[in-house]
């Protein structure tokens, strides 16, 4: 992983009532590449992703994206700045065809006035079909998104997140509920995507994350236990401790 700093998270804390989900978390993501975020259940991984995307406001700390302070920016503003999020549970639009789910993502930068006149619908067709091909969904373009399998819905979510050409793609458990074959294919897809933008991926499967990630951050009970190259972090004694204790 190299290049300019994309994301800087400084001392971010977040509580939900009495629960301290994040405590003074620091994280830096540079250039393109795949950054893994691991930790046992309840360690704050998904909360950190949501805090970066703007779904949760931070209690304290600062978030900078490409040098701009986005700590108080709305999810809309962060999306426009180049942050895309795939939620842990697929959030596809179940009563719309797969094709329209992708179209919705591609047309997000158009003005409401342009959308009223439907002037970009046909020009986006090639891009939409290419995205469907890439994620093995071309044959299901006319099916309702709600009729897809869980794994296919995960791919559709990644495809819609990628449609906005983000600079940072946040993926919360992209292989959750997938078969081993789907998991392998997803790994290949993510390896290809990391040339286009920076990825921050939350995963439970350590083998999967070791295979595809360049760098790793380990979270436990809202604290960062360590950050660094995969080869270095996977031998971290604390990593074995928390996984042995909690998983």
């Amino acid at each position, binding site marked *: 992983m190299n290049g300019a700093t994309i994301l800087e998270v400084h001392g971010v804390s977040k509580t939900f009532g009495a629960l301290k989900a994040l405590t003074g978390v620091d994280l830096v993501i540079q250039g393109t590449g795949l950054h893994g975020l691991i930790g046992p259940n309840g360690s704050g991984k998904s909360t950190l992703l949501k805090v970066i*995307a*703007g*779904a949760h406001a931070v209690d304290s700390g600062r978030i900078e994206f490409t040098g701009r302070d986005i700590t108080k920016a*709305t*999810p*809309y503003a962060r*999306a*426009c700045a180049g942050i*895309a*999020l795939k*939620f842990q549970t697929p*959030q596809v*639009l*179940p*009563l*719309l*065809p797969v*094709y*329209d789910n*992708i*179209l*919705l*993502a591609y*047309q*997000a*930068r*158009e003005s*409401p006035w*342009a*959308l*009223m*006149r*439907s002037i*970009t*619908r046909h020009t986006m*067709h090639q891009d*939409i079909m290419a995205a469907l091909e890439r994620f093995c969904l071309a044959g299901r*373009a*006319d099916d*309702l998104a709600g009729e897809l399998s869980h794994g296919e819905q995960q791919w559709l979510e990644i495809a*819609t997140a990628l449609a*906005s050409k983000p600079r940072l793609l946040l993926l919360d458990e992209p292989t959750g509920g997938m078969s081993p074959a789907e998991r392998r294919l997803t790994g290949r897809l993510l390896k290809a995507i990391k040339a286009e933008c920076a990825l921050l991926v939350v995963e439970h499967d350590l083998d999967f994350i070791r295979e595809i990630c360049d760098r790793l951050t380990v979270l436990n009970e809202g604290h960062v236990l360590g950050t660094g190259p995969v080869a270095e972090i996977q031998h971290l004694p604390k990593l074995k401790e928390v996984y042995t204790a909690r998983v």
Partner: protein
Amino acid sequence: MTRDPTSGICILARVEIATFFVLLATPFALWSRPELITLATNILILSMLAISFDLCWGYSGVMSFGQALFFGAAGYLVAIVGRDLGFSSIWVSLPLAILAGLCLSFLLAAVLLLDRIRPSSIFVALGTLTGSYAAERLVSGWQYVGAGNGLSSIKLLQIGPIEMVEGISFYCLALIVFSVCYFGCRVLVHSQFGLVLAAIRQNEDKLPFMGYRVQIYKTATFLLAGAIAAVAGMLFAYHQGFVGPGNMGPGLSTVAALYCLLGGPGTLIGPVLGTAAVEVAGYFLADIATIRQVWPVILGLMLLIVVVVRPNGLLGFVVSDRERIGSYGRGGGKQVRTTT
């Protein structure tokens, strides 16, 4: 849900074609029954009010109980302009009504919809209801606009030298205005803008993360709905020759919601069928004294039953969710050919 192999036209489109056929045939079929032509004209005008509620609730998820505010305000405006300035030309009244609807709906939207934080449905419902109620109370005590008696003897609507009197000619005018509104809305809800509205209905929380400012889309739809309600209110005032506080209160706003929910929210033809069903039933049952007295109760029960048993309204019995929502990409904004 199975695809219908027998025809290239979906069920919803068939219902629309049949409805417009009936609307076109009405003047010929009811030539000798002026009282029924008046009823049909009222149905057309009130259908526009119901469609305006449908655009808010059925399409963009804005629970507006204040559509009568725009309806009544436009009626009062053209009545006052006619009385004080002597203008009753459609070329003056129509733009005035649209302007009034847009301005009032923008004022409400600025307070209720355009907040940085997403407003709750209850907040919007109560806000619009309060606006409608406040306007009704205001005109009820304001002598300049006739107070509780309203304004009667409104000048006849003029198109050039022709004065539009109640009957076939006014029905034809109402049908033209209704058709323009209907097909304009149809183009909108099947456009890429309509895709955003469909997404708002299914998962509003997701859209900001995709780069959509949801409140802008809701506000734009609310403004359009306000303008349509105002145009309907203008026609209603000219057709009745009267406008009163009841034309802009929560009572009429609720009736508009009933028309839409009964016929089928999220479809444009549903509110038209709902309006026709309620108005025709009310017209014929009004002759029976015992039923006339309990008619509001019957209406309320109908709403309750429909909302509980069939939230998609009467059209929900024949039109599937997929057809109702349609497709926007490869179908080019067409409704999907399916049967339930």
